[in-house]
């Protein structure tokens, strides 16, 4: 596969390490009430759709950017690639 890196353009997927569901961006607050239950869902409940999926890929043999790749898991078509840092900020993560 080729992943169209937002900064570097198309790069071979062999240069990346795959992590999985981009929902891992949404880490709960570990000190909040009910943290264990929230973390249980966060750590173990993952989407695994046959179709469009938002995934985390790490450009380990590249610029070390974490990317959010929207990919159709059936056809391998890649619909969108963004820097995970940008997605994280947009979705409310900060410090």
């Amino acid at each position, binding site marked *: 596969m080729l992943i169209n890196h937002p*900064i*570097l353009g198309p790069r*071979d997927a*062999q*240069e990346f390490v795959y992590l999985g569901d981009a929902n891992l961006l949404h880490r709960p607050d570990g000190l909040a009430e009910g943290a264990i239950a929230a973390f249980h869902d966060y750590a173990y409940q993952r989407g695994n759709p046959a179709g469009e999926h938002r995934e985390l890929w790490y450009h*380990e*043999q*590249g*610029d*070390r*950017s974490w990317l959010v790749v929207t990919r159709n898991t059936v056809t391998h078509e890649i619909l969108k690639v963004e*820097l995970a*840092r940008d997605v994280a900020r947009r979705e409310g993560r900060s410090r």
Partner: protein
Amino acid sequence: MANLKPLTALGHDAPEVLSIGAVRISERFDVALASVAARRGKAGDLASAAQGIGLPLPAPATHQAGDPWSAFWVAPEMWFVEAPFASHEDIAARLKAALGDTTSVTEQTDAWVRFDIAAPDLAPLFERLSNLDLARAPVGFASRTVIEHVGTYLVKRAAGEVVLYGPRSSAASLLHVLEVTAKSLL
């Protein structure tokens, strides 16, 4: 300074130079290296500070040569800076002093082995080593790439000249694959 004798990454007193057909591979032992990363929100300040000392901070995927400072982009808001080792062995301290709290600076000189590779046409060699489209890459192109499992930084300095930075501990393995591949082109 200290009475300790340095060794090259290949474990010799002097850098190695090999000529295989039209390909010349030269180990470089005379370049100091440091990483420079902008502190959060300080990219602008870093740019001005860098300008003040003539330090280039090139765009992604590029290298910019200068005197004494050259640099190439390695990651968002991070560069590797090169300078002559003889005059800049203390590269990290100098950069830190010049750039202040706009940056995080880390010495990288001995983390890498550097090979300069020259040939009239480097495409036949590099299409057997790296997935980069070197033939189409412009002069000044810089990228990380994997060569036989070894992660390296590649800089296209001229049409027939490439600089490779590989992990210092794998210097012998990296040279081996360069050598074997160059020989297969004879």
